[in-house]
């Protein structure tokens, strides 16, 4: 039903757009950056249709857990955009993996040349990699930190203002569009501020910070307690098949995500980095369980604390990550777009090499991990943790990894791009103790029109 709904919506939109085009007696067309754009003669109405496809191949060199090396078409998109007066609209659907999913679906109102208000489903303004399209990332996909902590698209409303010196965007959002879980959705307040003290031809310094306060979506509804509030969860996942970096933080009360970013270019040189820090405040339902229990001859359970002693302490969880990458562009210089607070796509014919170091830490562990649970530990005489028993806690062992990547990009034309990446990833994940390192080669032929 969801697929049908999405397909119908897309066809309806394209149909309406086409009928509008046909209704115009005099239409002009022009080519811009590899795409055909339509406009009414008076320039009041503009339309564009396009799409893109990623043809990928991945080869894993793994040491224990087998990963699925393969070729595939990882994404296919079709989109339409329209502009009239002060308004812009975009509808963009993905058909990746034979599933239809909404990407950008928004209406944008320009108050003036530098200020706009956007409503719909679009990127929350948070960090660099978390708020740009995958077609613009320097590597194939975001860094593991970017994948894990970047927010992506949500349904909401946001205002943006920018100049050559700064970029400010903030909004309020109400969860993911494809959230089909039972229970109430969450909300978030997200903002990003960027300062560009140097923004000249051939030279850029861009520093910024983002913050997002979030009430996560509920993941189900417990009829027994007539409650969904305790059941919210936050997931961070990244890397190959999301195996070695994967934290599922249940019983989440609220979440705070922070980000710092920097971009610097000098001619053909690029430096880009981001730091992420997140905190999930836990919320148990022990009070509810206690109110629905009654003591018995086994002494179960006489206090609310007794539930915590038995089921474990709901610890707050902190995670973090960063990456730093350098690049060199052959054939052109890097250029900057103040409206998106990111770099423009290099000119056709350019050739780019990059190196990146990334660290993603999804471990927040107190005590000893045994049998998929965390036990509060005592200390050995030599100062090391002693495997203990008794009370458990809800620590999280999503894994930590440091990875090093190299990339080669060739911007063949405005429509075609070829990418080649190599990544070596050191792994520290309690759920994958046999895996110390995995490396992989990725290639992508990227079409857009």
């Amino acid at each position, binding site marked *: 039903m969801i697929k049908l709904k999405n397909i119908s919506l897309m066809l309806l939109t394209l149909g309406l757009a086409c009928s509008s085009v046909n209704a115009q007696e005099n239409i002009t067309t022009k080519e811009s950056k590899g795409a055909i754009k339509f406009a009414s003669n008076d320039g009041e109405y503009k339309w564009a249709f396009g799409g893109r496809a990623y*043809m*990928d*191949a*991945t*080869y*894993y*060199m*793994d*040491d*224990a*857990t*087998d*990963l699925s*090396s*393969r*070729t595939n078409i990882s994404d296919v998109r079709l989109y339409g955009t329209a502009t009239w007066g002060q308004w812009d609209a975009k509808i963009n659907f993905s058909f990746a993996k034979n599933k239809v999913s909404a990407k950008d679906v928004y209406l944008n109102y320009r108050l003036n040349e530098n200020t706009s208000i956007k409503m719909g489903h679009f990127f929350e303004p948070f960090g660099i990699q978390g708020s740009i399209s995958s077609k613009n990332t320097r590597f194939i996909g975001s860094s593991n930190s970017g994948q894990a902590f970047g927010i992506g698209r949500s349904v909401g409303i946001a205002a943006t203002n920018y100049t050559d010196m700064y970029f400010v965007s903030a909004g309020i959002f109400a969860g993911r569009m494809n959230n089909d879980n039972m229970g109430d959705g969450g909300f978030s307040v997200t903002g990003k501020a960027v300062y560009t003290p140097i923004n000249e031809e051939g030279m850029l310094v861009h520093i910024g910070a983002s913050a997002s306060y979030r009430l996560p979506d509920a993941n189900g509804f417990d009829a027994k307690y007539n409650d969904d509030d305790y059941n919210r969860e936050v997931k961070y996942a990244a890397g190959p098949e999301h195996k070695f970096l994967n934290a599922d933080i249940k019983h989440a009360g609220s979440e705070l995500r922070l980000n710092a970013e920097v971009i610097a270019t000098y001619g053909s040189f690029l430096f880009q980095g981001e730091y992420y820090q997140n905190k999930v405040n836990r919320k148990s339902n022990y009070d509810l369980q206690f109110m629905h229990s009654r003591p018995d*001859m*086994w002494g179960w359970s006489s206090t609310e604390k007794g539930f915590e002693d038995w089921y474990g302490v709901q610890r707050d969880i902190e995670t973090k990550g960063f990456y730093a990458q350098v690049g060199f562009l*052959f*054939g052109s210089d890097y250029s900057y777009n103040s409206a998106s607070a990111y770099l423009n796509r290099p000119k056709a*014919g*350019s*050739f780019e090499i990059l190196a990146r170091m990334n660290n993603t830490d999804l471990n927040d562990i107190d005590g*000893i*991990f*045994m*049998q*998929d*649970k965390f*036990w509060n530990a005592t200390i*050995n005489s030599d100062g090391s943790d*002693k*495997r*203990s*028993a*008794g009370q458990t806690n809800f620590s999280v062992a999503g894994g930590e990894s440091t990875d090093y990547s190299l990339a080669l990009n*060739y911007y*063949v*034309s405005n429509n*075609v791009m*070829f990418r*080649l990446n190599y990544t070596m990833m050191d792994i520290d994940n*309690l*759920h994958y*103790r*046999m895996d110390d390192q995995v490396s992989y*080669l*990725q*290639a*992508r*032929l990227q079409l857009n029109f």
Partner: protein
Amino acid sequence: MKYFNTKRTILAGALCLSLIGFASCQDDTVDMNGLENAERIPMKTVTNQATLDVISQLKKDAPDAIIAHRGSTFWTPEETEAAFRWARNMGADYLEVDIQRSSDGVLLALHDNNLRRTSNIESVYPARVDADISNFTLKELRALDAGTWFNEDKTDNARQEFVNQKISTLEDVLMIAEGNRVKRELNGGNYDADGKPFYQEIDGDGNVIGETTDLSKSNGHFIYEVDALDNGNRPGVYPETKEPWRFSGMEADLAKFLKKHGWLSTDATTLKNIPTQAGKVGVANTKSRIILQTFSWQSMQLLEKNLPNVPKCMLLWKGGYDNLAGDTPEMIADVMDFCVDNNVHIVGPSIGGAPNKYDDITAPWMCKMYHRPGFLIHAYSFDTQDQLKKYNGDYYYEKTASRFDDANRVLANEWKGNITRDMFIDAGFTNLTDLSLKYQGRAQTGVTAESVLVDLGYETKVGRK
């Protein structure tokens, strides 16, 4: 970049994609079978010298130990005087007992949490049938018949003398291991295994003033006498503690109890000398006379705290809350590291097969993991010859010979180079001590399970003949 031709570049890119795609068809990862995992996964090893010394002592005192599970669950009502006397005379190296505590603080030998299965509580205390053992005094427990259920449940092995067998205490078990029995009313001047037991008689202040067969005038503790039918075996005792939340302070109580009765091997000042005979079981007079066991991590830590350097067995059960959640190498490695940290000496995994049909967590690669840190393996519970041969690895050898039959047995051709001794158990808990003795070549000619029962006075068979 004029050096690049667009069409050629796209073709080159497509070729690169294809090559990576073809390469991905290769099998790039080592197949991780159980043995690979067992050998590769990081684990701690025992380095504590005192722990290593205890393990060495165990190998010396009780190699290939036969541990009589609850005395016997097959031939006698479990954990009764009949069960423990039979196991002793049969020739078990250890008497295995489950420790619980009565409301008046007496350490009991009883398995279940309640008394439904192994007593006539529904007749005696109908309002308390599901009550925890800790709600009963010893005197209340001694009022129950802990033998008739067996006669009704296992009619083939029913015997008249099992009727009105009593729930045992840990003291009863130690006394039997030392060659004693419960003093009973004589029948025509002769010992009668069915006779009324004598208890310690007490006055109004609880002082012991004599002995009586009237339970109501007693404190419930038995009077013992030298067992005239004892054949000289002196087995050790293998007590199991439960989760500490059920019996808080149990481990400390156990330490005091063992010391008081001279069975605490680490306390030379109180250690009792228990005379033994050559050619008979003599574990009771060794440093390994007591082996502590538990499924609970928390209880294991308390045992280590209260009874350091007394041999300890970490029992493994797949699916337990604070035990082995799963039988993956990671899960097993977790528990092994816990055992190293807490000075455990023995690992006790369950075996598969009828009649218990427990999870098989004693596979060869698992045994290799249990042995890697330096532990011994005492698996539970053996009921058949097939189980004994399987978990001792006999089926890998020519003519399926056991190491007890042939010390120089040879691996079958297909297994040469793949099978090592550390893939199998060192000892086992058994419901059929007689079968295990026969398997090990320790059975005495003409002595059978039933002949031992008859010799001990349990001669009146009332089940199918």
